[in-house]
């Protein structure tokens, strides 16, 4: 654990670096220059929580999820390490081994454009996990833009022959990758949700209809209240997952609840923002699209509750996870 004051200082410098650099590569370089890599190694979950909250607040294109995954695997944290993330809504490795071929169906960050090789996590009959580095050109995704306004994530689909791949030695496990990624992404979703809620709140106070601010209408007030409750519920779970021994189930719930909160906040905020929120004149659409993309990473608000349910049925009991 890192001292709260040090963490606050790091948060300031990370946020400043993100706000200063708009492109993904420049933002990555700036973050690494102010010590992001060292922070991540020293406090994998706690450090990521701070960085991903800043990511959410600033809308930065920095590809720090690659760093979180690399660090969980025990691979060097460097701004040119690019990892293939799971397919949308899934938590399993993007690669599936089939004989001498690894089929890849996943997502990659903008780092692939500046990396010679990418790391492909794969599974073998859903059991054994492995990690290989392959030539980035084998998976280089189409240059068509995705919905992601940060132009960060795109699909990466392809087949890689094992002969063309180099085994990556790792010390971490896929379970730790998933846990750390989910905890980090939960903080990002919560931060973006707060941004969306504030946009809608501001608009509701400024926008006058029938001679009064629309914020005075109960139907509008309750939509915004609904969003805040969803955000705070998710935040309490996410904040509980900062220590390195955080239970994987807590991280999964944090991501699931944060995804649900983002969906609820986006829907309620968009309705309150009404016409202007439907345009590109207003920045709301950037946050909306961002949450849609982040929600799909490492399991979504749609897929994670089922995963949690299966875990509970397999255990035959529900853990309390936290005591007073």
């Amino acid at each position, binding site marked *: 654990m890192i001292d709260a004051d040090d963490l606050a200082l790091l948060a300031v410098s990370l946020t400043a670096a993100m706000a200063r650099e708009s492109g993904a590569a420049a933002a990555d370089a700036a973050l690494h220059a102010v010590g992001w890599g060292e922070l991540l190694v020293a406090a994998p979950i706690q450090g990521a929580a701070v960085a991903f909250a800043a990511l959410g607040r600033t809308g930065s294109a920095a590809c720090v999820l690659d760093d979180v995954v690399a660090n969980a695997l025990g691979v060097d944290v460097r701004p040119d390490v690019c990892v293939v993330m799971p397919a949308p809504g899934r938590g399993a490795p993007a690669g599936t081994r089939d004989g001498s071929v690894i089929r890849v169906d996943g997502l990659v960050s903008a780092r692939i454009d500046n990396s010679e090789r990418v790391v492909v996590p794969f599974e073998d009959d859903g059991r054994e996990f492995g990690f290989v580095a392959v030539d980035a050109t084998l998976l280089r995704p189409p240059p068509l833009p995705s919905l992601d306004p940060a132009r960060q994530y795109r699909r990466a689909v392809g087949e890689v022959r094992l002969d063309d791949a180099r085994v990556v030695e790792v010390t971490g496990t896929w379970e730790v990758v998933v846990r750390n990624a989910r905890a980090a992404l939960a903080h990002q979703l919560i931060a973006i949700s707060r941004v969306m809620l504030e946009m809608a709140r501001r608009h509701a106070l400024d926008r006058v209809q029938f001679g009064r601010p629309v914020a005075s209408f109960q139907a509008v007030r*309750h939509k915004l209240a609904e969003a805040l409750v969803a955000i705070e519920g998710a935040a309490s779970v996410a904040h509980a997952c900062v220590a390195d021994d955080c239970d994987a189930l*807590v991280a999964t719930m944090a991501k699931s609840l944060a995804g649900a909160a983002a969906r609820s906040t986006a829907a309620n905020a968009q309705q309150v923002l009404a016409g202007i929120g439907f345009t590109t004149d207003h920045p709301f659409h950037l946050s909306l699209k961002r949450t849609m993309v982040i929600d799909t990473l490492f399991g979504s608000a749609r897929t994670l509750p089922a995963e949690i349910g299966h875990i509970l049925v397999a255990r035959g009991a529900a853990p309390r996870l936290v005591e007073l």
Partner: protein
Amino acid sequence: MIQSDVHEFRRDLAAWLDEHDAELRLPIEQHPTLDDELAQFRHVKRALFDAGWGRYGWSSAVGGLAGSSMLRAIVGEEIATRDLAEPGLWSMIEVLAPTVIAVGSPELVAAMVPPFLRGDEMWCQGFSEPDSGSDLASLSCRATAVDGGWSVNGQKVWTSFAQLATRCILLTRTGEPGSAHRGITAFFVDMDSPGITYRPIEIQNGRLEFCEVFYDDVFVPADRVLGGVGQGWQVAMNILPYERSTAFWHRGAFLHHRFDALVANVAAAGRRDTGDAHLLGEAFQTLMAFRFRSRETQHRLAGGESLGAETSIDKILIAAADQTLYNAARDLLPGVIEFDTDTAAGHWRWDYLYSKAATIYGGTAEIQRNIVARRLLDLGAEP
């Protein structure tokens, strides 16, 4: 409170409860009546008080052994998890005793609170009226000054367990009609006072949950004023932090206990791949959002912070947890709530119907959202 003390307390309490489990349970019929539940509740309260466990978290002024309010939350959690007392009866103490301790005279507190903590008495809360529900400040049950005290006339409704209660915390109008929050006075009233009559009201699950209570020229001595004349609204607001800390933690623990039963049911039925596992996951994460949030609240209270509007979020989260859980149970146990007649099915039916009240009692879901909008989102006053 040092965290290790809390862990130690829980461990020792659990050991004691394990050791005395058999003697803590009265023999009851297959379908316990409210009388059975009351008897069981009193039995457990008495045993806990005599053994000391029921006295931690309460001050020595009321026969307590002091310590953080979190210790009471832990006792409530262990009792709920072991099904040792009906949760509604249990929560009344956590809501009402701290309020009387906070606003009652030292003599009144010393005389009245210990029997309540021992389980000798039940108390009730006379707030709502036929024309004053969410708009509590419009209440009209009138108290008029008479020689030596006050005379109360009017009607209350939704008074939980009034038929079992020996005392009532009663809100009355002592100011001019229309004096709203300012003209309300709270009293501590003996329920056997001449002039009090009541009619129990049966709720959807068949229980006589609450009463209409009528007050006709009921004399209340002057020393039974709580918190001062005209201070009744503050007394009512004083209840909130207690309701939303130890009592909520207890309710949450009860919901977790019922969720355990649901998971065990689903696991035993081998219903692993029916495509509705997400219902369990949603219920669990909703419950956990409340638990993690409430834990923060308990720690803030134990750390000396005063609780306010932000606890409306706790209230909304626990109501969501309650209803999500029982809606999931209805779908995951097809037909059980609607048709089955065994004891377990009776529990699910009872709880399912009762869960619908979670967004009504203690301030409706709409009132909570109004508070969140006004106080937490700073959206300004409603017109």
